[in-house]
């Protein structure tokens, strides 16, 4: 096994000049993020744009979005392991790699949001005091770490088996696959419940939030996968079959249609009989008492998503790679705004006492967030490199 780790490590860090340039670039952006985080550690969260009024912002927005990306790996896991689709099985490990990178990013976004990160061990049961099952945040800690473990353990077993030249035993890992499927849905449901559990915040306090989170995750996840698979097709010898992309595009189409329907349902309920519960959504879309800095963003998101759903719904356009890619980029950005800043920030505006205080992220927040995204990409790149090396049998246990 030590030999496997050694070979894995070597394959991760061997590549041509472009590969190294890419790693260096990501490393540099990550370092920039670290420098900015050092600033935040030194001066406190005062360097962010956050306030008592809007106490969560850009970090938690990215967190909510990335949990969705992580959960979307299930869209490859189900057809690969349950329906035994050979074409999907070829890429499922990459999907799980995306999940690992996304969960780590999501966790880091929570850590950088903490006022006292050095006390994070207070969350560890026995030595600390995890408020489980009462606190939804405790639930999120449990499900995210569990999901990370599952998505490390299953691919590790499969890769290690292939490395040794033996067929992975389905009866051994199948129970964990089933668990991972349920778990994937649970991570995003729990994250939605984290918000919807608060009657103090009428904007989030809706039963539709969970379904909306899942629907939008099944848009942003496939959008990202489709783009990544094409990039890999271009620059590596690893061939992702077109049927994989077709399936993902189809899932994404349904999910985006459903998501837009949910948005309409939300808008109708809030605006038909407008009351105190509608203040946040009015702030978000139209502005409130002269404040409305988020409105342009949500309209951009809505426009992007509508254009994307039109492209995806028209079959010839969805099958054409150029238009499909446009739809992927538009909906990825659209969902990122809608489920990120468009969900988290209006929950705080107005405050429960009716005060309107706006928020925009500072350069420190942006740089730290970029750093985390770079680290996520770096993790995925290394994992993908390893998966390709094993799948193409470039590394295997030497015959003894």
């Amino acid at each position: 096994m030590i030999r496997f780790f050694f070979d894995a490590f070597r394959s991760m860090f061997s590549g041509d000049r472009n590969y190294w340039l890419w790693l260096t670039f990501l490393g540099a952006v990550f370092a920039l993020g670290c420098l900015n985080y050092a600033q935040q550690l030194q001066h406190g969260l005062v360097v962010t744009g956050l306030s008592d009024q809007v106490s969560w912002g850009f970090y938690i927005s990215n967190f909510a979005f990335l949990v969705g990306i992580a959960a979307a790996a299930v869209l490859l896991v189900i057809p690969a392991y349950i329906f035994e689709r050979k074409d999907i099985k070829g890429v499922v490990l990459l999907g799980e790699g995306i999940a690992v990178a996304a969960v780590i990013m999501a966790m880091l976004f929570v850590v950088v949001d903490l006022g006292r990160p050095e006390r994070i061990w207070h969350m560890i049961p026995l030595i600390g005091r995890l408020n489980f099952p009462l606190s939804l945040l405790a639930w999120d800690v449990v499900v995210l770490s569990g999901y990370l473990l599952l998505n490390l353990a299953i691919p590790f077993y499969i890769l290690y088996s292939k490395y040794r030249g033996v067929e992975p035993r389905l009866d051994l890992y199948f129970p964990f696959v089933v668990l991972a499927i349920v778990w994937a849905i649970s991570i995003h449901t729990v994250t939605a419940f984290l918000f919807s559990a608060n009657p103090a915040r009428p904007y989030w306090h809706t039963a539709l939030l969970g379904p909306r989170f899942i629907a939008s995750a099944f848009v942003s996840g496939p959008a990202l996968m489709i783009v990544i698979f094409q990039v890999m097709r271009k620059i590596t010898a690893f061939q992702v079959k077109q049927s994989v992309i077709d399936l993902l595009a189809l899932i994404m189409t349904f999910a985006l249609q459903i998501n837009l329907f949910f948005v309409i349902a939300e808008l109708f309920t809030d605006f038909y009989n407008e009351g105190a519960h509608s203040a946040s959504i009015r702030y978000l879309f139209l502005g409130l008492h002269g404040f409305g800095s988020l409105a342009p963003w949500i309209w951009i998101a809505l426009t992007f998503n509508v254009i994307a759903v039109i492209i995806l719904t028209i079959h010839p356009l969805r099958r054409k790679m150029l238009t499909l890619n446009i739809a992927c980029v538009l909906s990825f950005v659209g969902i990122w705004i809608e489920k990120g800043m468009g969900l988290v920030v209006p929950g705080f505006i107005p405050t429960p006492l009716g005060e309107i205080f706006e928020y925009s992220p500072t350069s420190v927040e942006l740089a730290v967030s970029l750093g985390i995204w770079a680290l996520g990409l770096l993790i995925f790149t290394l994992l993908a490199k390893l998966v390709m090396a094993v799948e193409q049998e470039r590394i295997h246990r030497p015959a003894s």
Partner: protein
Amino acid sequence: MSDDKVDKTDTGTVATRRNFLRNFGVGAAGAAAATIPTPSPAWDGLTFREAFDEFFRKHYKKMSPEEIERTLTRIERRAKRRFGVDIDCKNTPAQEGVVFGYAINLSACKGYRDCVSACVKENNVGRDSQVQYIRVLEMDRGNMNLEESEHYYDPETVPVEGKYYLPVQCMQCDDAPCVKACPVEATWTEPDGIVVVDYDWCIGCRYCMTACPYWARHFNWTEPQIPPEELNTDTHYLGNRPRPRGVVEKCHFCTQRTREGRQPACMEACPTGARVFGNLLDPDSEIRYVLENKTVFRLKEDLGTEPKFWYYTD
């Protein structure tokens, strides 16, 4: 260091705590504290042992009396280093048979905000941060829509014709959503009904602030700044002791005062007598009289958090 010790034993309240400890047979811990060598700056002004203890301390509810004593001593030393002032940090437990409640007479409140400034001083709230545990909202008569309230009115010109004033602070909910939200049990409801925060256990995730329907929780975005001469040296572990950066704080019904039978600072400061504070379990208390004889209501009662804070009019 020895001067420090003498000063402290002179004040009555410190002696109370030492007596309390002696009853537990742990006077040695207090004596040891006096002989600790000058701390090195490497451990943030504490000795290595103290810094280690502080980082790896147990949850408040799991600490032994000795550990609590060591913690209180550490807090006092830290305050001395930070402000150059000797403070007394108590750990007075909740009294038996007491659950505190509060009521405000909206007919009497004129919006002077003396309660706000008294609270800031009493509770060692950071002066630069503009954190205030009490918000007095200026409202149009005939309207209870909080969204139309004025938070930043000028207290010099009150009362304004056609306005009324609605003070809001932590309602010490019986089923507090903030307590449920906290992932590490850094905040809980004490037996006397006060929702407290352990500033040394809070990880600063601010989920409690998200959960609170009264916007009663505040975060230390930066190190709270207090002029040393204005520091209130009578402090409580679960109350007004100096807070570090990066943790949440809130109104705690002046734990340091009310657990010794005194009034909360906001009530004492109110020039119009609009505030009524007392023991909800005592049938002869003024608060019980108000609840039984006035038409009272609670803010956002429909959220089901069971606030122990009522409003009434004459």
